[in-house]
């Protein structure tokens, strides 16, 4: 029984990628349906960030990636962004020397002026704190606020699929909840989300489905409603890699 929704927005098949000679991912199969939140969990060094970079085109890869029916296996981030697949990289890398507003404008580089202005306002509406600081340079923001700004950047293009790479890293619990709540709101608006996270409980609470990645392969795929998920995950991380078959 297929667990993915009949209309898969993102479909990854046999994806392998690495850095130079170092192979990190071996033949990944993964999918994200329209309006779904999918969590990607796994221990460090498993390749979660590498997987997102391979999907968005920041890294060269072999294998097949389709988005909204179109083949993006050879596409770079410039193309994927315009097609509605946006990748918010880890480490809240915003442009510190520019204002929050300019950071958001840059996220929509190439869009018509008026439309861009509207989208920026939309993005800011998710994060009122950042809206209040729109004319301040990003360097004056705290780490957590910079992370919110980075997620806001991801929203400017009103993506169909938003990929978030460890948005909770370095954030206090309150801010983490805020960011993840924004993710929930996005799902209401129809945006699908692929979320890489270290905080298992929070990720499981938010997501519809979960993949576990360990040592470069998918070792677990399940709906978050299934039983025993935390212990199965622990086993997958520390053990020999329990591939949980789907029921």
């Amino acid at each position, binding site marked *: 029984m297929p667990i993915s929704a009949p209309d898969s927005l993102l479909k990854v098949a046999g994806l392998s990628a*690495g850095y130079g*000679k*170092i*192979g*990190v991912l071996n033949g990944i199969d993964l999918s994200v349906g329209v309006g779904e939140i999918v969590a990607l969990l796994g*221990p*460090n*060094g*498993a390749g979660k960030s590498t997987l997102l970079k391979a999907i968005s085109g920041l890294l060269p890869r072999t294998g097949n990636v389709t988005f909204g029916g179109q083949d993006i296996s050879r596409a770079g981030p410039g193309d994927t962004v315009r097609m509605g697949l946006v990748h918010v990289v880890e480490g809240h890398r915003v442009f510190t020397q520019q204002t929050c507003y300019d950071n958001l404008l840059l996220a929509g580089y190439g869009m018509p002026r008026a439309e861009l202005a509207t989208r920026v306002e939309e993005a800011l509406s998710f994060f009122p704190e950042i809206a209040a600081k729109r004319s301040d340079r990003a360097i004056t923001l705290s780490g957590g606020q910079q992370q919110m700004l980075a997620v806001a950047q991801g929203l400017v293009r009103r993506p169909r699929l938003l990929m978030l790479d460890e948005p909770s*890293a370095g954030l206090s619990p309150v801010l983490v909840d805020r960011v993840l709540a924004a993710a929930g709101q996005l799902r209401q608006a129809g945006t699908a989300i692929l979320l890489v*996270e*270290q*905080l*298992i*409980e929070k990720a499981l609470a938010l997501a519809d489905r979960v993949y576990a990645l360990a*040592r470069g392969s998918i070792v677990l795929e399940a709906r978050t409603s299934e039983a025993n998920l*935390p212990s199965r*995950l*622990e086993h997958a*991380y*520390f053990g*020999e890699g329990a591939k949980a078959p789907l029921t």
Partner: protein
Amino acid sequence: MAAVDQRAPAPAARSGLWARIEKASPLLAVGIAGLCFPLLGDDYWAVIIERACVYWVLVSGLNLVVGFAGQIAIGWVGLLTLGAYTTSAMTAGTALPAFPAYVALVASAAIGALFGVIVGLPALRLRTFYFAMTTLGFSTIVTQVALAWKSVTGGGVGTPGPVFPWPFDPGWGFYYFCLLLAGICTWMTYNIAGSRFGRALVAIRDAEVAAEASGVAKPALLVTVFLFSGALAGVAGGLFSSLQSYITPDAFTFDLSVLFFISILIGGRGSILGPLLGTLLLTVLPEFAAPLVAWSTFLYAALLLLIVLVIPGGIADLLDFKNRRPLERHREIVPRPELLSRILPHPGEPNVLALKGIVLHFGGVRAIDGLDLAIRSREIHGLIGPNGSGKTTTLNVISGYYKPSAGEAYLNGKPLPFEAPPTRAAHRIARTFQTPRLIGGASVLENVMIGGTIDGAGTFVESMLALPRHWRDEARLHEAAMLALAVVGLDQLASVRADRLQHSELRFMEIARALMLRPDFLLLDEPAAGLSAEEIRRLGALIKQISKEGTAVLLVEHHADLIFDICDRVTVLNLGKELAAGTPAEIRSHREVVSAYLGA
């Protein structure tokens, strides 16, 4: 290829005089051709060959700076100018009473050496482009001074060059003089290239961090090379002024600097034969393209552009047939831990390396927030934790790259200073790196021999002159490296270029290099990353045996299986602090560790 367990390590490359001659045969052939040339009696071409020899005297030295050490010293013609005017002025007696020509030549060497160091010193502090600019500025200044200091140099009018007396008087005598000096320079630089100093230079160029970890002191080595290279340039200058018979400042154009540079690049970095052929080629070329003389610099520049874009490896790469032979595809790495007892010393007292209260800031972030850690002989200490917890940073603190804002390190009770990575090798602290650091163009064996650089007894001069201690060092290093490669299971690949190896093989090669130090402490930074399950098992067995032989091992890893399998103690880091420490079993069931690792 299945590995046979009980085979002996692969035989060392044939050593001895005959093999050495065979290796140097192309150079010898060129030399013999030069010796026989006078039989043709062609005076015109004799001058061309003299010019090539004079240029080669300079280029052979510059080759060590540019081709080996990788310093982009574009303005080296300035030293040629200095040498030329020194010799001329001293023999003509314009500044001091007249000296004999040979004495003046020696003085030129000294002046060249001095200014070689002066021009070269900025390389230790400046970025590449900045350094290139300063050498350019230097050569311009020298030309300006030559123009202005009329009393000594004759200004724009120029000054006559020296005439060397018997036995090297003008005509065939001078020819043999140039050939002799070119031959000596070839021999000396060839010896250096094949010594631990030559390998260390290339290591500085391609894998500086690994060179530091092996104890290579970059400043001392670079200064030595600049001194040597400057001296050669000075001598070339003296010969040049004699060859020209009369020198003016515009004989020393920027074009010459470009020519020297291209000779090295055409020839290929890290080679002696390549740049020699390159120099010959570029000296002789204008003779065949007489109508194009006005375009010569243009063509040189076009040639340089072509080389940089298309064949950065130069002639040497093209002639490297040995490394075109295909390698076996399904190679297995089969370490032989039982050979370790031949490498590692059996310690007397157990060693301890302890960190106390380390605090380290990067910008506003506390990368390490109060850490105590101790690694002991015969103990494998695992260091694990989530991304950003400070694992590799801790390792970098131990190996001396960072200075913490608080805390100390102790080696057997004595304080260990920070911010001095090359000193670690002398303390027998060895390490590997998260991303393998290798010298792509050198063989696997040469890469591993770098690890033993500090154990050489011979000096630079002894290597330069191929004195007995140099050969003893080389033989010992060679043997030790082959043994280390046999231990990690890579001895069959010893003569292969390192950049042809697979990633997992490179990881084991790094361990072989670290073993060359016969380390009391071995720091491993994620050695299992990118290895297959079977390779990880063999790696584990190897590390266990290393520990049994008495070495203290610190293992930073993500692979939980490896950690729990072989470690005696495990420390878990989180946010720069110790979260838990104990035996693997204790850690495995520790609630907080599980949740921190899984992140709840």
